[in-house]
């Protein structure tokens, strides 16, 4: 690693990406220094190079024979035209995706009848046009060749007709012995059919089970208010936020609106200093010369900040302050101004202490001593912001912590301000399966129907559900995958994807959405609604009729609901509860004291969620936001705990609890709480598909019904074997230069343009005459490090939009990942008090692009609109451009990654983007296909100039935090031009004078002076 002398970080911060880098061993420095990591140019596995040459020679010979004829292509128009369909033109439909009790309103783009891209729905309060990683990636599941396609009876393929006939033959009588198990029922139609089923079979039962649920949260509000209520947060009003083990920005996110509101309050830091101006980024160089103002920089009025896109008015309340108390280092922890590492099991004690400190509970003996300073400072800050503070508790925490959070919010006057409560009509529950298991054991269940879940895999380990399930006489499972439960079932039925079926869903704020299909079922599948109708009425019925009848909407309202993606006026009314402090106090006193020693916490996976997305290659290849691990899950421990356990990265931990044992590869996570092991659910699948089978370990094997979130009483030892996790965190070294820039609010107030002050002051040299970029559309981008939470939504959106291939675990370990945008995660501070800054990094579209001057075939050249164009068909694969790129954003196709792809998977490709071949370089192009589409549309419509916001890049469109702004920098009124004159704006590697079109806004944290 080259350390460039004299380049300092004004704030004195050292940024590092891994513990290896922090300790900086010579071997590691040598590894980093290589432009392409060792083995990256090795074509195939050893010994196969000769075979490759043979194949090449053979294919040349064949090519000579076949090239004499022009290939005949056919055009196959419809026989009967489809109304409104224009070949090749995108169509957009609103629908809704339900996962784990949450409903995500989405707008889906279809071309020629193929859904290819998911976006958020602007009409929905919880989406605001943004979509999370799971929604973005869900379109890949639709075309998964491993999807369940056939009805299976006892391992043999059969038909729906055979199942229907067999079902008619079943003697269900009054329903005694009939049970239905499903995931959270968020669909009113499914709920209606459930009522119909129970009416027809009075003794039948329908239970719900979600491995990731809100049981504790609802039990907590019941403790506090005597009513099961769901908190609805309004972070736009919260000046001080305390998270009690809640990753509300990512894994425990209740709705994307929370991220947006939080991010806007982070960005409100700009209102605390006078607005920047265009010249702010330019200052005398070391040689005393003024930099020439670049022509692209528009001179914005001094009050530019007032009209900013994410409007920060002079009356803006300014930046918020976030305190996080947690064990695992989550993305919410990464945004924290102050973060307390604490075992999850001890968070309840912390919450009780804090409640006493702010007089929500009567004074008593404090349980924790060591976090006193933190606790008193938080208490003081919360009390100083009554009505403008917020306390959130995470779903892993027991009910009394949720009750304490509710009580504290009441004492602080936050209820009705930053948090309100609604009565949920649907909820994700995790307890139903316990009763079901008991009844199976008592031989009371004869027929068990499982609708769209996989209980054999996800059920709590203490229920021994797999054996119990097999003991039921007749089991019928509807699932989109042939999974663990399918193998154990008498009947397995293939389930339709949400993009193939009619349905409806209630989101967590009560808003109802209609789910409309964009494509006929690709395989012979049925939806849960259709199968439930079969149970309830004896015929499968038609999804459309069932949903429409249930909605009770008039035709016009129905059509409006389909169009908007929401049914107007369905948001749940706010209730005004009063917390009973006595009840909470009693619950806190009655709660068992957490056992000392090691604990285990169970987190959803940022890729697989609860296991349902494990066969999604886009999600598996997206590096886990904090660890950057791909295609795996790890057991996370703190550096201190690792030393105590005598393990290093690469070791495997053997975890044992109550006679159940799991082996998991260890990853040492800076900033993780000591004496705590974070396990990730959703991996270690015994049976799913070619992507997800056998990757990672199965954390469900340790998860019991009494410890769904946090488990103590664990024995952890180092296992004999070792295992290498593949992580991208050390790929693409930046050689110690000030790439990410960060300051505190105090430092920011003192020097608002601190970020550009960190530029190296050298004479800027222009190698050749610059092009005149002063006319027309000049595309540029600003990425705000202040609001980026590192959630990967942009990365998956980019993958979906731009046909980016997946390369697999082994290839990522060789540094061959293909993502055009990556989320660089930098740590600052020490290994214990580490803080994190995320930096999305894609092609910077340099005006003086170093890649272009070294290309021998002019495959990468500049467009007059400032884009660094990539002509794939010209590229001969010298890789000189990647070598010369200072940002490491070019990706090379070492193989034809699309070669062995199944026909059905090809349907996911965006036809507006070339599918690249082996030997071709590729990179971000600011979604040039979207730019061209808008330009042509404007041209055809008659030359109206492109307005700001007409062109959205895929990453920008999906970002829930509005961290990415794209537009015409020649238009002084565009959002991007205004942000370019923001105080915090800085250019990466400014000293190279390559004039990147993407610039960054530095991060500002808001530390509490009392904790400094």
């Amino acid at each position, binding site marked *: 690693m080259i350390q460039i002398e004299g380049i300092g970080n004004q704030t004195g911060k050292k940024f590092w990406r891994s513990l290896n880098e922090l300790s900086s061993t010579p071997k590691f420095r040598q590894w980093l220094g290589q432009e392409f990591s060792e083995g990256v140019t090795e074509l195939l596995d050893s010994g196969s190079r000769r075979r490759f040459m043979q194949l090449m020679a053979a294919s040349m010979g064949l090519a000579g024979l076949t090239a004499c004829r022009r290939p005949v292509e*056919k055009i196959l128009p419809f*026989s*009967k*035209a489809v109304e409104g369909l224009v*070949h090749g033109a995108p169509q957009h439909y609103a629908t809704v995706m339900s996962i784990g009790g949450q409903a995500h309103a989405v707008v889906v783009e279809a071309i020629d009848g193929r859904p290819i891209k998911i976006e958020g729905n602007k009409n929905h309060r919880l989406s605001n046009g943004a979509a999370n990683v799971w929604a973005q990636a869900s379109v890949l599941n639709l075309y998964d060749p491993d999807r369940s396609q056939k009805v299976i009876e006892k391992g043999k393929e059969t038909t729906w007709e055979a199942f229907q006939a067999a079902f008619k033959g079943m003697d269900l009588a009054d329903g005694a012995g009939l049970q239905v198990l499903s995931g959270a029922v968020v669909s009113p139609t499914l709920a209606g059919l459930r009522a119909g089923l129970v009416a027809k079979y009075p003794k039948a039962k329908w239970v719900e089970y979600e491995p990731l649920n809100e049981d504790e949260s609802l039990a907590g509000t019941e403790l506090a208010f005597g009513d099961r209520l769901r908190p609805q947060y309004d972070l736009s009003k919260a000046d001080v936020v305390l998270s009690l083990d809640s990753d509300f920005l990512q894994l425990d996110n209740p709705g994307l609106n929370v991220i947006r509101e939080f991010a806007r309050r982070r960005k409100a830091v700009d209102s605390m200093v006078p607005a920047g101006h265009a010249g702010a980024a330019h200052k005398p160089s070391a040689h005393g010369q003024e930099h020439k103002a670049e022509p692209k920089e528009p001179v914005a009025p001094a009050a530019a900040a007032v009209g900013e896109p994410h409007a920060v008015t002079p009356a803006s309340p300014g930046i918020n302050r976030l305190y996080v108390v947690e064990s695992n280092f989550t993305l919410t922890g990464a945004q924290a101004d102050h973060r307390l590492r604490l075992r999850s099991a001890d968070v309840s004690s912390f919450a009780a202490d804090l409640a006493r400190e702010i007089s929500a509970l009567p004074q008593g003996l404090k349980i924790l001593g060591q976090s006193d300073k933190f606790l008193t400072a938080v208490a003081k800050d919360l009390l100083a912001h009554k009505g403008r503070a917020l306390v959130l508790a995470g779903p892993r925490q027991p009910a009394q912590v949720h009750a304490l959070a509710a009580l504290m919010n009441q004492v602080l006057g936050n209820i009705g301000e930053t948090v309100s409560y609604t009565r949920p009509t649907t909820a994700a529950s995790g307890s139903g399966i316990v009763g079901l298991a008991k009844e199976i054991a008592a031989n009371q269940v004869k027929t068990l129907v499982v609708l769209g879940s996989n209980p054999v895999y996800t059920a709590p380990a203490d229920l021994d559900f797999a054996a119990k399930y097999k003991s039921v006489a007749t089991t019928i499972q509807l699932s989109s995958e042939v999974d663990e439960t399918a193998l154990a079932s008498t009947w397995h039925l293939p389930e339709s994807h949400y993009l193939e079926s009619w349905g409806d869903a209630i989101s967590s704020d009560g808003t109802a959405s209609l789910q409309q299909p964009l494509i006929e079922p690709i395989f012979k599948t049925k939806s849960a609604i259709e199968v439930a109708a079969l149970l309830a009425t004896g015929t499968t019925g038609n999804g459309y009729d069932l949903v429409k009848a249930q909605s009770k909407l008039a035709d016009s309202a129905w059509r409006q609901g389909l169009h908007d993606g929401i049914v107007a006026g369905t948001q749940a009314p706010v209730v005004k509860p009063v917390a009973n402090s006595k009840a909470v106090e009693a619950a806190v006193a009655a709660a068992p004291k957490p056992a000392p020693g090691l604990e285990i916490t169970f987190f959803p996976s940022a890729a697989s969620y609860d296991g349902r997305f494990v066969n999604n290659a886009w999600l598996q290849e997206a590096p886990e936001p904090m660890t950057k691990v791909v295609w795996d899950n790890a057991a996370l421990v703190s550096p201190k705990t690792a030393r105590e356990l005598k393990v290093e990265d690469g070791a495997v931990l053997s975890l044992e609890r109550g006679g159940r044992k799991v082996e998991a590869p260890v990853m040492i996570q800076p900033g993780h709480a000591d004496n705590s092991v974070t396990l990730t659910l959703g991996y270690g699948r015994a049976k799913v598909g070619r992507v997800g089978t056998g990757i990672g370990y199965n954390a469900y094997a340790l998860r019991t019904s009494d410890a769904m979130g946090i488990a103590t009483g664990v024995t952890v030892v180092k296992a004999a074997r070792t295992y290498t996790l593949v992580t991208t965190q050390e790929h693409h070294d930046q050689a110690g230069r000030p790439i990410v820039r960060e300051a505190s609010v105090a430092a920011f107030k003192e020097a608002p343009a601190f970020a550009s002050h960190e530029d190296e002051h050298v004479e800027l040299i222009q190698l050749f005459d610059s092009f005149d970029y002063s006319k027309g559309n000049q595309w540029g981008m600003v990425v705000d490090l202040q609001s980026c939470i590192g959630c990967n939504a942009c990365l998956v959106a980019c993958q979906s939009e731009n046909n980016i291939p997946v390369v697999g675990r082994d290839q990522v370990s060789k540094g061959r990942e293909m993502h055009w945008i990556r989320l660089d995660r930098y740590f600052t501070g020490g290994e214990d008090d580490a803080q994190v800054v995320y930096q999305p990094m894609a092609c910077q579209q340099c005006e003086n692009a170093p890649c272009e001057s070294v290309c021998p075939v002019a495959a990468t050249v500049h*467009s007059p609109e400032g884009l660094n164009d990539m002509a794939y068909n010209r590229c001969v694969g010298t890789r000189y451009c990647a070598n010369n790129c200072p940002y490491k954003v070019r990706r090379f196709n070492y193989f034809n990654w699309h070669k062995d792809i199944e026909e059905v998977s090809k349907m996911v490709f965006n036809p507006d983007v070339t599918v690249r071949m082996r030997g071709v370089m590729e990179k971000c192009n600011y979604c040039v296909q979207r730019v*061209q589409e808008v330009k042509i549309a404007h041209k055809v419509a008659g030359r109206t100039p492109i307005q700001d916001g007409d062109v959205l890049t895929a990453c920008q469109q999906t970002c829930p935090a509005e961290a990415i702004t794209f537009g015409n920098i020649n238009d002084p009124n565009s959002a991007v031009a205004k942000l370019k004159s923001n105080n915090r704006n800085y250019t990466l590697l400014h000293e190279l004078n390559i004039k990147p079109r993407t610039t960054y806004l530095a991060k500002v944290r808001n530390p509490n002076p009392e904790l400094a």
Partner: protein
Amino acid sequence: MELKFSKKSDRILKTVGLVIALSVIGGASTLYYATLPTTLEPGYQPKQPVPYSHKLHAGNMGMDCTYCHTSVLKAAYASIPPTQTCMNCHTKVKEKSVVLEPVRASWASGESVPWIKVHRLPDYVYFNHSSHTTVGVSCVTCHGRIDQMVEVKQVQTLAMSWCLECHRNPAPNLRPVQFVTKLDWKPDGDPAVLGREIIAKKGINPPVNCSGCHR
């Protein structure tokens, strides 16, 4: 000194050398000219499943191009008409014709008529019909006098250099938009002069950078 080789062998060597050189040059130039787009592309005229005559429909009867190619003015693809468009007339006209049997079969079965593509661009070229037709580039510029063709034949190379000729100098190929589908339209006077007027009026500035057509 005794000669190891006779003078004759020297002559043979020279002749052989000349023959080799000539055949290499000849072979290379044959290969070069034989694979040029101008040699390979124009004149491609596959046999279609139905001998649909553009000359009869568009020429003699004067049907407008957009009757069948409905999206040519508004989308990337001009669109090949569905069988339904044929059947608009052919349920009444020539309803028993033998050559129209595949069309009737398609209408009855719902299967497509398998037309053979004549004008083919590589997959990495994103040509958009609407952006050309709405600024006044006529069908005839790329497709020739379709209205005089009994069977459609490719007349231009559709090579990148040919595209760029017009993108660099569009004036000779522009006409008022209302005449775009009038293939026999001729301007009064110099087409380049009229073209320059249209360029000025519409602000036409065709892209000549890579991402204009390649994405």
